[in-house]
């Protein structure tokens, strides 16, 4: 399956993965792999995280059951009339680090953004059997075309920071942290160190 729809063949033959993940699919992901995602995911960034954790603090239910789901850190630009969504690439993940372990404890299966995660998040991912993916930062126009449906779920007043449900098709992502505890950014750094050696 080519992700570039005839414009190019560089992305041919990527492993296709359905969302939400089956436990088998989740376990098959390997750090460093480029994959193609299709199915349902949820979105949220700074404000959504702040509000989800505030609800948890108050002992209230979350607006959506995140168990088994993928949470994508994105604040899209507004759609032009007749379009599903505007640009929709990832935002930097470390800003969500302080909230993420709580959501992983609720069964969140995967998160997706860009950039490395904290040691606490990596530990929580291992403890709860979750993975972390990197979407392609700065490819917002391309990724916009991979989003086939977008539906507001909660926190609409937060604008681009609201919680949406997306239907995506052939959405490319790189596996950074897999279930075996491997971290692709760390593997690259270690390989570079060796090269210097």
């Amino acid at each position, binding site marked *: 399956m080519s992700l570039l729809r005839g*414009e190019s063949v560089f*992305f041919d033959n990527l492993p296709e993965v359905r969302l939400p993940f089956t436990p088998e699919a989740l376990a098959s992901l390997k750090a460093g792999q480029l994959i193609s995602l299709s199915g349902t995911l949820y979105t949220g960034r700074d404000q959504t995280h702040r509000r989800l954790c505030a609800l948890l603090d108050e002992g209230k239910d979350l607006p959506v059951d995140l168990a088994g789901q993928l949470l994508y850190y994105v604040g899209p630009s507004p759609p032009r009339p007749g379009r599903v969504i505007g640009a929709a690439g990832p935002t930097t993940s470390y800003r969500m680090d302080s909230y993420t372990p709580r959501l992983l404890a609720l069964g969140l299966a995967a998160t997706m953004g860009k950039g490395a995660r904290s040691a606490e998040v990596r530990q929580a991912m291992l403890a709860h059997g979750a993975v972390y993916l*990197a979407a*392609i930062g*700065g*490819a917002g126009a391309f990724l916009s075309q991979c989003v086939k449906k977008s539906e507001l779920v909660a926190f609409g007043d937060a604008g681009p920071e609201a919680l949406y449900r997306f239907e995506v098709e052939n959405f490319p992502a790189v596996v950074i942290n897999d279930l075996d505890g491997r971290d692709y950014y760390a593997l690259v750094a270690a390989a570079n160190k060796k090269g210097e050696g």
Partner: protein
Amino acid sequence: MREIDSNEIRKGVRDLTIAAAHDLEPDILEALRGARDRETGELAGNILDLLLVNAEIASRERIPVCQDTGTGILFLELGQEVHIRGDLNDALQEGVRLGYEEGYLRKSVCDPLTRKNTGTNTPAVVHLEMVPGDRLVIRFLPKGCGSENMSSLVMLPPAAGTEGVVQHVIDRVVAAGSNPCPPMIVGVGLGGSFEKAALLAKKALLRPVGVRSDRADVAALEERLLREINARGQGVHGFGGINTALAVHMETFPCHIASLPVAINIQCHAHRHKEIIL
């Protein structure tokens, strides 16, 4: 004395904001193509291809290159023989507001304490410089925060010298990792005062990508920094390879005998910039 109507400025700024978000300039596209040609890593090469395709889609389909359409930063060079009819600052802010609204750009500006979004992507940051002549040059640089957040300013002791500067820049770039969407452009402001160094680092980003400083020793330092940064092997998006940075641009200004300010302003591959001359 030449008259420029503030309405013309408002309209010009509106158009700049929309064009900047959708149409990358030849300098950054050339730099990305060059990186693609040099790249040896498979994953990094795929990503660079994707970024070039992304730029095409953005321009053709009128979808922003990146959803973070930034805080608006305006650099003005105002000829001292120009008289502006109407309110210049209003015209600039209104131009930004209109562009972000009518161009379907993301509004990302909020109060620093309450975090409440201003809803208009204003106020934009304005830097005004008076120059000889009767023209008004407006440069627009929307700045995303994945890269802006990786920037820094430090007052080094003069004894740190050139080696101290080099070490500090490399340390910051390495610490930024994949957060600022590499391949990046590293703007360095050296000297001046606390605020001058920061402004120089940002101004360095306005130079066409890869053009060296016209001061030979600074140009040599830019080249050395670029070489050493890319030798670290972080690469495109932190996925390894030789393309961590596309360019290092350094601007200098004399400073106090007791001081060595160093500012680093990091820019991502979505290097959006536009200018008009009125």
